[in-house]
């Protein structure tokens, strides 16, 4: 038995210690907002926050999250940064197919929470781990700046 704190709620789970959080969330807790993309931490679709840090849930065992705060896309809108990121995503119509966007938003929210006025290099550093095959990258960059209140000229 392991107890996880998922989006502020304690969840008692009978799963193997080495089970990645991704499958725990999706298959055991039926929280499907967090996506499977590569299984190797290469694409970022599975990004969640553990104690506020962006983390690839496909390569993070549940045992590593015991006693820590797990935040997923389903609850990121309750954080100030997440709320601003989601609003900017809506305003600029960032998503296309949308499959990678949970991970994009989790990475972007962590960036904004840690850096109020991210520049282009900050955005590259924070977002380069998140692949989007629809190529929404220009809008992702613009939406992060919008959420931060950063104008292009400032970066």
């Amino acid at each position, binding site marked *: 038995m392991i107890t996880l704190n998922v989006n502020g709620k304690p969840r008692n789970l009978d799963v193997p210690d080495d*089970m990645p959080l991704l499958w725990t969330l999706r298959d055991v807790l039926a929280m499907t907002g967090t996506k499977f993309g590569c299984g190797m931490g290469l694409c970022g679709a599975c990004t969640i926050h553990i104690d506020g840090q962006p983390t690839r849930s496909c390569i993070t065992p549940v045992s590593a999250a015991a006693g820590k705060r797990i935040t997923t896309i389903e609850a990121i809108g309750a954080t100030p940064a997440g709320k601003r990121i989601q609003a900017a995503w809506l305003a600029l119509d960032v998503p296309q197919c949308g499959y990678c966007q949970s991970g994009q938003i989790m990475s972007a929210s962590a960036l904004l929470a840690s850096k109020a006025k991210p520049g282009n290099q900050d955005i590259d550093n924070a*977002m380069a781990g998140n*692949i989007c095959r629809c*190529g929404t990258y220009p809008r992702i960059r613009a939406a992060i700046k919008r959420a931060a209140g950063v104008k292009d000229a400032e970066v």
Partner: protein
Amino acid sequence: MRRCEVKTTLIETQDLASPSRRYFLTATSAIGGGLLLGLGLPARPEVRDTLTTDAPFAPNAFLRIDRAGKVTFVMPMIEMGEGTYTSLPMLIAEELEVDVDKVALEHSPPADAYINPLVGVQMTGASTAIRSMYVPLRRAGATARVMLVTAAAQRWKVDPSSCRAENGMVVHAPTGRKLGYGALADAAGKLPVPDKVALKEPGDFKLVGTPHRRLDTAGKVDGSAKFGIDTRLPGMKFAVVAQSPTFGGKLVGVDQAKAKAVSGVTQVVRFDDAVAIVATHTWAAKQGLAAAAPQWNAGPNANLSTVDIVDQLARASEKPGAVARQDGDAAAAIAGAARKIEAVYEQPFLAHATMEPMNCTVHMTKDGCDIWVGTQVPGLTQAAIMKLTGLSREQVRIHNHLLGGGFGRRLESDGTVRAVQIAQQVQGPVQVIWTREEDIQHDMYRPYYYDRISAGVDAHGKLLAWSHRITGSSIVARYNPAWIKDGIDPDAVDGSADQPYEFGAVQVDWVRQEPPGIPTTWWRGVGVTRGTFVVESFVDELAADAKVDPLAYRIALLDKKPRAKTVLQIAAERSGWGKPLPAGQGRGIALCIGFGSFVAQVVQVSVDNQGVVKPTRVWCVVDCGVQVNPDTIRAQMESGIVFGLSAALYGEITIKDGRVEQTNFGDYRVLRINDVPQIDVSLVKSLAAPGGIGEPGTSCVMPALTNAVYAATGKRIRKLPIANQARVAA
């Protein structure tokens, strides 16, 4: 002289002029009240609504209005990012006079009513959504509006011409009376369907042509949007599948005991060429597969490599092919020309690498089979499962979902077939997932193409004749042989046989050569992407040979293509074409006429002293005729450009020892945010028939990029991907 002109691909845009050719309208009173407006063939009541599976009736229609005034649109196309779940509702809402933000959307089930008239099957693909639905959906909206207005006029005993529809209501202008659509739906459903309804003139559009927020964004920013892989059913099991790593290999052994010893593993399902591990969650299934350590017999392709395939293509390309276009005697003209210029172009196998890996959830029951999947072809998928299982059409129920990327991959039903084969041996529902490695190693690939092209020029470099032989796999021959005309696969020669430049003699022919054991299929831009790369690269070579500016060279050969000239000229203006750049930088230009649209792009690159190519700017100009949702057109151009750059810079599936060498995003590299150039998209206003926008952005950017590399380095890229080829010249 024989001229066999091949029009672009599989579609006939002139069908837009006679939209009623295939369709007729039906209207019935919906069960439970309201108006059910059908557009298409008679209802098959057993077809179920895919979103609300408990619904008491089956929509056979594009449009439903209930007594409460709730308006529901059933989408004939599936949303995979291209924006149809906004642009198609805009078309209906424009004529129906409802607030498009308040309508409910449903995925269409497999049914003849939703057949795409441009391709003849129920398909989202080939950039046809707007082209095929621009008139039919407006007609559906207008017809419903006329019936609702008529119902209101009858109730008020007034002349219908004194009433108008606005914002989901009918208004009687002289008295100011109003009735909502819900209150009129029953009565409207009892009226005869008008034979003819007037559609708005484009100048009267209120919605169409104005940027509109996507209707599907909210669920895609909070994790609530449901893709096929998000299906969750009571008692559902999870499975992973492993197919023989070598194409055509067989399963010879599995350690069942070790697999079943993994906690959570419930079953090992063996096939001739694959094994699936079923478990209570995906992690257990993955662990079980590792423990099962399947053993394979490599089979007939055990020694196959890319080099062998390219050799076969090269040899096949020495034979004459089926003639797709012949203007004059190109061979004689080239033989008699002052000089002959020739080149070979090669384009590799490509995977799709959709962000949502292939997956399918199936529940075999006593009375049939339920399938939860995201597919571009619900009808073909249903047919494949009927053939596999012997079940009737009514018993194979496809519940379509949003697609986490399509790009052609989900035009195939292979994954659904495998999932059903697995589910046939499992009690209860099972979700089958392809790991990323399995998804890449058992994709169906964009085929390798080998093009020989030559031109004859006079002493001044003026182009006299052109001969182009295309050699590669025929997707059409497998997918729908009926599309082959006069021995020509229209996809194989698309963008080539109809190359737009006018000069002297032209010959284009095609040789079919299949790669042994390797499944091939559609990939974004299909034949247009392959043809445009060769034609636009070679035209650039000819311009360089003639020492003429590549833009001016093209313009001079496009006298009869004013829309093409216009997009090229705007792209040149916006990009500062002709202005000097520092050493190691260059601009390339390309034109793509495809899918009914005209696209020109200028790519600017820098090539560092290690030969690393970095695209820094892209200017894209598109004339796609009437624009429905302009922001979606911009988004699709951005998308197509990024997709095409990934392929042209890095994309390559290679075969060694009979298997795909690439496994995941580590060795199948795609663009990341830090790789993306600044992209500037301009739209040309036009009242021409709408063109497709999902694909030409991809088709255009590859030659624009390689032409820019030439401008920067003098190195002509004739084989994709670019990879490290610029290193030689740098």
